[in-house]
């Protein structure tokens, strides 16, 4: 794999994560448990969409074939997406949505912290802007996970179920391959595996406070960040998200 291909893949991973998660979170708009949460979730989604524009914009620039961030978001098929599986699983209840958000935010904040020191100035600049937004996402999702985990009997049960379901999707964020090795060599991005220790410390502190139990199994689903095998859910998400662009090719919106 050339450095350029590896770089593109890395940028797609970043941008597709925020694109797909932003899309999922935006599905809540108008349906949240309370108005204040509705507004807060929309803010998170807006931040993620904004980050998507930056990451996919840079990916398009690096690819250098005249495409735009929109082309990448709306005109690729599922196998070209490089997001982790965690962000594409459906929202289900508010508990699963917030647990998914927390598990992602924890990784995201650590990752962006490392990327601020990237040898590529453009990457460092995006990471710097995004890291402020994500620091708040993490604060909010962690607090909510704690509040619901240590809330009522029902909220505790639902949060434990959410954690049990989502935990096998957390491991993929730390899997490394040859493209990652290329990024490490270039000083552009850290080795994903190197983030795990900090992640485990952070996550276990919050989940302990939330009185929740981390499943013992370290089994991890994989295939999203390499594009080898997404979940069935991604295709459905794309049929909605990409519909207008696909049905009316070339139209300007």
């Amino acid at each position, binding site marked *: 794999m050339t450095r350029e291909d590896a770089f593109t893949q890395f940028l797609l991973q970043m941008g597709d994560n925020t694109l797909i998660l932003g899309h999922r979170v935006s599905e809540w708009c*108008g*349906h949240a448990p309370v108005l204040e949460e509705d507004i807060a979730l929309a803010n998170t989604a807006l931040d993620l969409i904004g980050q998507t524009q930056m990451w996919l914009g840079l990916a398009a620039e690096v690819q250098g074939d005249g495409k735009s961030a929109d082309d990448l978001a709306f005109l690729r098929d599922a196998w070209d997406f490089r997001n982790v599986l965690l962000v594409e699983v459906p929202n289900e209840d508010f508990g699963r949505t917030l647990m998914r958000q927390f598990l992602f935010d924890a990784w995201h904040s650590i990752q962006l912290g490392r990327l601020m020191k990237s040898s590529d100035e453009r990457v460092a600049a995006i990471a710097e802007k995004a890291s402020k937004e994500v620091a708040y996402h993490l604060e909010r999702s962690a607090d909510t996970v704690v509040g*619901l985990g240590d809330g009522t009997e029902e909220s505790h049960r639902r949060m434990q179920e959410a954690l049990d379901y989502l935990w096998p999707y957390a491991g993929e964020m730390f899997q490394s391959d040859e493209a990652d090795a290329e990024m490490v060599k270039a000083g552009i991005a850290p080795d994903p595996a190197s983030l795990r220790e900090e992640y485990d410390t952070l996550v276990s502190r919050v989940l302990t406070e939330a009185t929740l139990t981390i499943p013992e199994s370290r089994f991890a689903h994989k295939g999203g960040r390499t594009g080898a095998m997404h979940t069935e859910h991604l295709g459905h998400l794309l049929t909605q998200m990409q519909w207008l662009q696909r049905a009316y090719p070339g139209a300007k919106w």
Partner: protein
Amino acid sequence: MYAQMIKSEATQDDPEKLAAFQARIDAGEKIEPKDWMPEGYRKTLIRQIGQHAHSEIVGQLPEGNWITRAPTLERKAILLAKVQDEAGHGLYLYCAAETLGVSRDEITEMLLDGRMKYSSIFNYPTLNWADIGAVGWLVDGAAIMNQVPLQRTSFGPYSRAMIRICKEESFHQRQGYDAIRKMAEGTPEQKKMAQDALNRLWYPSLMMFGPSDKDSVHSAQSMAWKIKMNTNDELRQKFVDQTVPQAEYLGLTVPDPDLKWNEERGHYDYTDPDWSEFFDVIKGNGPCNVDRLAARNKAWDDGKWVRDGLLAHARKKAARKHAAE
């Protein structure tokens, strides 16, 4: 405007107090929550502010219907920000209503069980992407007609909420017009979508102003109290006069064969909406009434464990802190 058919409550208060109250309003003073006010004023305001708030919240649904299908990242962000603003506006208005002694949960339940209404417009569906443009252009345009004067309404918290809302709302109509303009100037299919949206939403938009003044018996008291600032027909005419040239600029046809400029009046003559349809929608028989209310009920019911859970945690935390002190 998001408040239609608000019946003014009759008032049976001390005539002297009433006269003094009216004098304050006539002098342009603001009434604040702790001031004396006629019971009718309070009840009418709760109903009007509540209906306005409910309209914002239910109004999230037809536009929210397109968030996951927005055609570009920028359009998606714009639409999401806009629908989020509606939630914020609902929140400000519920807070204004709370100063009159009705809690958010109480007033929410009145929406959910059908005791309170929301604007008829949100019982119409959004069927193609141009509807998102048309809603911003027409529905927000109509709402602004009413909301701008309401900034001067006599009740302080309501007035302040409207000021904040108008400040935020000003981008809504423009984004709508900008979105539908792209369509009207786009491919033949896009133009067809834009015309289709205008065809379906024109009359429901005119209905937003409520029935004709001659059939609207509730206005006089509300206007004296400055909680209604203009008559329905005044605002509707203003809306038509403003909107027709905007449609012409887009090359779209307003679905009213009798629409024409009346030189003598200095206004457009237009066809009234079908008021029997309006009353059907108000009664619950619009295309989306049942679904809209079901969606709000589902969000509320599904959210109960979350609201209860976070509150239970807050109480535990407070108790632990108390025990430690």
